[in-house]
């Protein structure tokens, strides 16, 4: 291949029909019993997309019901208060536990991580398959909870509400309890894989940054998720047996529940966002055709986020009845955790600067990520500042903040990664122009939906409100219209991605000119990934003509 950087779409070999992991062995049974990380990744991908759709429909319902304080749209009464509470709870639970947490690690990460390392599979392939079925067992219990009347606690399950409401809390808690183990097993697998299955020649600092992000994520999955399991278990037992740990009337402490819950769930928001950052760290250098700037800083900042992220959970509880001492300590630590995220943003910008940039769909999503995550991060500073948090917590400001991080961050990263690796996964190119249009729609719709919520929150609109003061109606309506634009963009995406599957294989092995190992094998890859054990001979982002440095 030439030393001069070539434009995309012309790099790589001409695709031909050849044997690959998709077609051999054949048959549904061979898929359901596969231990191939790529097939498990695809099964995860289909599952999380299905739950993304379900959670998204709940989101559209919420927004539709809030269009007008009367909840009447075109002469139809939308949700009543109880249904509304159940819908936002299930939106949260499905999006967090069944979509975002497994989305990047278990679906995309499963597919590309071993290939990026030059490995044939993850360390424990059977555990990988088990994790997929455990995920579905948990999801099935969550579905049982929805069918048997739903849950109205909010995804945070705060006691004593969750131990006294008569909805299907126990089913849902057990569903999440079980799904948590699938997350643990994925993380366990990734740590072992990264430690022991790197290709010959690939040192820790020769790994693609995606792998560093997955490593940091996996650390948190392994160390935090067990506490979620025990928290939900204790909450369920409290509900059934009244054991007195979280119930104030029995001598327990509801604030202790919040400590337990957030000890997992704060690291969990980093379990969600760090993979998004990891994907952006891949996309930016590839589409800037330039070496990543500050490789070590980005790698260390992932680990830094993972470690400091464990120490800041109390910032969810500034007004919850913690001691003032704890509040101040947690606020201080919260500001420290902002630094590694900022470092990443600066290094991405420095990578783009003096690059050779093209704006294909993955790059559009990566730039969306940077802009939206910046807003999410800066508004996080508001919420870390104590006196302002007292005013803003439990308002729409918080809702907007975490959607800017979770959706503006993780989902943009997920969509970027999905488009980036789509040719490798399926062997097909999607319609590029439609991809760009959809990315623009999602970006515009997202901002239209959530930016007004910052203003509403600042003005004192509390979250989880079914009825609201008439003064907020215009902004709620604006927000609802924004949600339709997101919906349009995402359905368009679904459409052209599915349409691309009807084509014969047309994707080159390396459509974007990536330097990491997954691009050095055919598209779609062989079952054993590489024809022979690859050896790392250069860094993952060496976009310089050889011999000029």
């Amino acid at each position, binding site marked *: 291949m030439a030393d001069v950087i070539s434009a995309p779409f012309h790099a790589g070999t001409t695709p031909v029909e050849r044997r690959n992991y998709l077609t051999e062995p054949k048959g549904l049974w061979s898929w359901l019993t596969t231990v191939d990380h790529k097939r498990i990744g695809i099964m995860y991908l289909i599952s999380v997309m299905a739950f993304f759709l379900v959670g998204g429909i709940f989101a559209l319902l919420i927004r539709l019901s809030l269009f007008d304080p009367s909840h009447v749209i075109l002469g139809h009464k939308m949700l009543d208060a109880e249904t509304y509470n159940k819908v936002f709870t299930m939106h949260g639970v499905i999006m967090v536990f069944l979509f975002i947490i497994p989305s990047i690690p278990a679906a995309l990460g499963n597919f590309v991580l071993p290939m990026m390392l030059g490995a044939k599979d993850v*360390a424990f392939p059977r555990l990988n398959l088990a994790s997929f079925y455990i995920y579905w067992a948990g999801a099935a219990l969550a579905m049982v909870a929805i069918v048997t009347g739903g849950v109205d606690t909010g995804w945070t399950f705060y006691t004593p509400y969750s131990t006294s409401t008569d909805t299907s809390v126990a089913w849902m808690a057990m569903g999440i309890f079980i799904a948590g183990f699938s997350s643990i097993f994925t993380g366990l697998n990734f740590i072992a894989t990264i*430690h022991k299955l790197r290709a010959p020649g690939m040192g820790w600092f020769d790994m693609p940054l995606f792998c560093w992000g997955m490593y940091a994520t996996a650390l948190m999955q392994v160390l935090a998720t*067990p506490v979620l399991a*025990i928290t939900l278990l204790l909450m369920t037992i409290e509900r059934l047996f009244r054991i007195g740990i979280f119930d104030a009337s029995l001598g327990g402490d509801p604030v202790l529940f919040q400590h337990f819950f957030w000890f997992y769930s704060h690291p969990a928001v980093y379990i969600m966002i760090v993979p998004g950052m990891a994907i952006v760290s891949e996309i930016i250098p590839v589409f800037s055709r330039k070496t990543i700037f500050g490789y070590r800083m980005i790698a260390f900042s992932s680990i830094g986020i993972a470690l400091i992220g464990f120490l800041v959970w109390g910032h969810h509880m500034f007004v919850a009845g913690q001691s003032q001492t704890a509040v101040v300590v947690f606020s201080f630590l919260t500001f420290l955790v902002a630094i590694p995220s900022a470092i990443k943003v600066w290094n991405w910008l420095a990578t783009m600067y003096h690059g050779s940039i093209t704006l294909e769909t993955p790059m559009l999503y990566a730039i969306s990520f940077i802009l939206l995550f910046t807003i999410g991060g800066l508004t996080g500073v508001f919420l870390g500042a104590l006196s302002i948090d007292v005013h803003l917590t439990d308002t729409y400001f918080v809702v907007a903040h975490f959607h800017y991080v979770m959706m503006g961050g993780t989902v943009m990263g997920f969509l970027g990664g999905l488009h980036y690796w789509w040719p490798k996964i399926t062997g097909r190119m999607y319609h590029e122009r439609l991809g760009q249009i959809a990315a623009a729609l999602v970006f515009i719709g997202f901002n239209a939906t959530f930016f007004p919520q910052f203003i509403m929150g600042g003005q004192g609109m509390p979250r989880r409100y079914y009825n609201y003061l008439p003064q907020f109606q215009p902004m709620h309506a604006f927000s609802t219209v924004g949600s339709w634009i997101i919906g349009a963009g995402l359905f368009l995406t679904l459409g052209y991605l599915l349409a691309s599957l009807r084509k014969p294989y047309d994707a080159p092995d390396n459509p974007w000119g990536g330097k990491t190992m997954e691009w050095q094998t055919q598209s779609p890859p062989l079952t*054993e990934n590489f024809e022979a054990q690859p050896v790392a001979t250069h860094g993952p982002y060496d976009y310089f003509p050889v011999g000029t440095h």
Partner: protein
Amino acid sequence: MSSISTPVAGAHEPHGDAAHGHHDPNLQHHFATKEQQFDTSKIGIWLFLATEILMFGGLFVGFAYMQSRFPEAFFEGHKHLLKVAGTLNTVVLLVSSFTMVLAVHYARTSRRKKLIICLAITMFCALIFLGVKYIEYTHEFSEGLYPGRYFSNPDDPTGHEFIFFSFYFMMTGLHGIHILAGLCVMAWLLRRAIRGDFTSNYYTPVDVVGLYWHLVDIIWIYLFPLLYLIR
């Protein structure tokens, strides 16, 4: 000329299945060497043990928190427990840990018969442990010492003994489930040991189960003084 795309390891000795993996049923296809596979399994089980520590840890934190709120209730509550049974179970578990580590040693040194004997003793100890636990639970239930809302002890001077017993049943119950799970896995090990699967060339399952069993022992090492002895 150095190529930008990563070359395959043409100049290298081919690794993994090509060299010897095809002939060794115990080497999975994605590992190059037995040692790599062994180390990977060890990292895997230690990570699993870390999750176990944090899961049990949640219960320990809850126990400590409630104990600091109701020290008298916990003190009064612990008087109902059978100290002798708890001590006996501690000894039984320590002995089982000892036989387990011997089993690992004999597997590593390819001594099949001794391996089988040690595994059998370990399983026997686990059964004794569960038997003693059964006697204890029966004793507590007969006094009305049930968890949570089912607790009834008219002589409870503190009003909060039920919290102690809730934790007692949750912690020993979860621990008991782990003993039971260990018993099942050891039955599987025993079957494979009798079949002669484990030699110095391949004994990963014995080692991994051994580590799990020791962790279950360590958790009991903490549970015993916390529940039975603390004043």
